[in-house]
């Protein structure tokens, strides 16, 4: 090996890039700093009065806006966290917003306290219609700067706030002890005092997947249940379901999908969950055991899902599900070379059969994950695109 002088190398490396990759010569975004470009991670929720709330992230702040006219116009944004933080806001990590029966607006997000895979789960509440927020608090009691994120937020039937996330503390401890540990772990906590304090977090189960969003939904009994990707023996990336007990009862997480997809990878596609009035657990998930596929099914923990239906294959991603009475909606992104389509299928018999897939919106620019929302038994899709946020009403045929 002949060592070159640093000056020669500085000249050679750009030459190398040019020779190897003609692509760099094309005029796209160049070298300008685009760090202030807002990420697409956003969440929306309706309150009891039908007002739409939207949480986005910009310049280190979670911003909350509301709309009185189904997303056509929005209020000026309110900064939820007055002091800027590094906030996860892309891909499957996004800020969350939930509304409570007394009109409270709960917002939750993941801060990156130090560079690398670190996270603190943060929370703030407004009790004056979104005008002001409580000082943000960190809900995880463990202060270790380890991986946390892919969090989710739900309000239990009794008004408790439930927050769940993927946590790397056990993996970090195992690593420092020189022991193997697959994936991360699923932790959750809850607040019984309106979000002022949260209980010490409880580990539901070891060996969750590392980088897929978690899903929470409220059961008819008011308890909150979770559906998330795990890592099973042999690096199988199937999903688990569990009721998240907040009363000291033992938890019983059970495997709930059985695709047997084995991969040492980050799928970056977490599942969705909606629970009907009779307790039917409508779920959507991604796996790639035989090529990429997103699925609908009704969870029967410990057994394969019922009424399993492959929704999409190549280019289909990031599905969500909602239920009201016998109507079940599933929506997902379908990408092609030309751009993105938002696809919908509807069932009127509780998920036993679904109508044809139809395109309800499209975008030539990048899009975030769709989120199905309900308002007075009608459904909408919240879709954040690089062109701006859209609320798409689902019109029944």
């Amino acid at each position, binding site marked *: 090996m002949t060592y070159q002088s640093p000056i020669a190398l500085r000249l050679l490396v750009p030459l190398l890039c040019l020779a190897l990759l003609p692509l760099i010569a094309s005029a796209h*975004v160049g070298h300008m700093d685009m760090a202030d470009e807002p990420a697409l991670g956003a969440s929306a929720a309706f309150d009891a009065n039908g007002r739409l709330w939207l949480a986005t992230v910009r310049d280190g702040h979670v911003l909350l806006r509301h709309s009185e006219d189904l997303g056509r116009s929005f209020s000026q944004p309110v900064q939820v966290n007055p002091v800027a933080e590094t906030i996860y806001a*892309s891909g499957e990590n996004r800020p969350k917003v939930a509304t409570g029966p007394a009109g409270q607006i709960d917002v939750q997000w993941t801060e990156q306290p130090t560079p690398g895979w670190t996270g603190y789960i943060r929370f703030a509440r407004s009790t004056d219609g979104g005008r002001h927020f409580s000082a943000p608090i960190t809900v995880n009691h463990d202060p270790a700067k380890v991986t946390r994120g892919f969090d989710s937020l739900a309000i239990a039937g009794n008004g408790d706030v439930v927050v769940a996330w993927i946590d790397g503390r056990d993996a970090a401890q195992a690593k420092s002890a020189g022991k193997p540990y697959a994936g991360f772990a699923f932790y959750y906590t809850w607040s019984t005092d309106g979000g002022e304090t949260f209980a010490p977090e409880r580990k539901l189960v070891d060996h969750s997947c590392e980088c897929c969003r978690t899903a929470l939904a409220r059961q008819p009994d008011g308890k909150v249940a979770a559906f998330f990707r795990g890592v099973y023996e042999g690096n199988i990336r199937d999903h688990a379901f569990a009721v998240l007990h907040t009363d000291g009862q033992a938890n019983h997480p059970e495997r709930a999908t059985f695709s047997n997809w084995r991969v040492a990878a980050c*799928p970056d596609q977490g599942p969705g969950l909606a629970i009907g009035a009779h307790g039917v657990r409508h779920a959507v998930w991604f796996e790639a055991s035989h090529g990429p596929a997103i699925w609908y099914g009704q969870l029967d923990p410990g057994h394969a899902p019922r009424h399993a239906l492959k929704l999409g294959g190549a280019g289909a991603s990031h599905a969500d599900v909602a239920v009201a009475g016998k109507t079940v909606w599933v929506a997902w992104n379908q990408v092609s070379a030309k751009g993105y389509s938002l696809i919908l299928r509807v069932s009127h018999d509780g998920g036993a059969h679904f109508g044809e897939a139809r395109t309800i919106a499209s975008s030539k620019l990048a899009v975030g994950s769709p989120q199905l929302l309900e308002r007075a038994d009608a459904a909408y899709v919240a879709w954040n695109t690089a062109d701006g946020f859209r609320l798409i009403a689902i019109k029944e045929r």
Partner: protein
Amino acid sequence: MRRLLTILLLTVAATAFAGASAIEPLGPGDVAALLKPPARGERIIMLWSLDCVYCEPNMQALAKLQHAHPRHIQLVTVATDSIAQRTRIAARLDAAGMQGYPACAYTELSPARINFLIDPNWGGELPRTIVIRTDGSRTALSGELTDKQLAQITP
């Protein structure tokens, strides 16, 4: 001659260049060039992201493979994160010792479209390793490569 020089330069750059990684934009219109068969040997495209915990060991394993076969392997890393995050991407590549390998990041805020253009039969799971040979044949593998898989893609 120029191509030979290029490959030689790659060797030098991969093994001796100590500066920060330069991240170039990869847009939909650039995918065809990225996937063009190399004139000799094979091009290994290593797709990764900031969120991916399996990606750094995978790129380091591929760098080691490239180092062992400098005349026959071109290694390119492609972050599926938006190039808006170029500072974080460069810092991660530097920390992984990947200085000097050509590095790109997506121009779009969500990766699905460029993922689809690169490989429609890929769900976006990372790492994704794509090997392209002179005859245009490709091998695409998801996940951290096993020793057996590394042996399979060795030229």
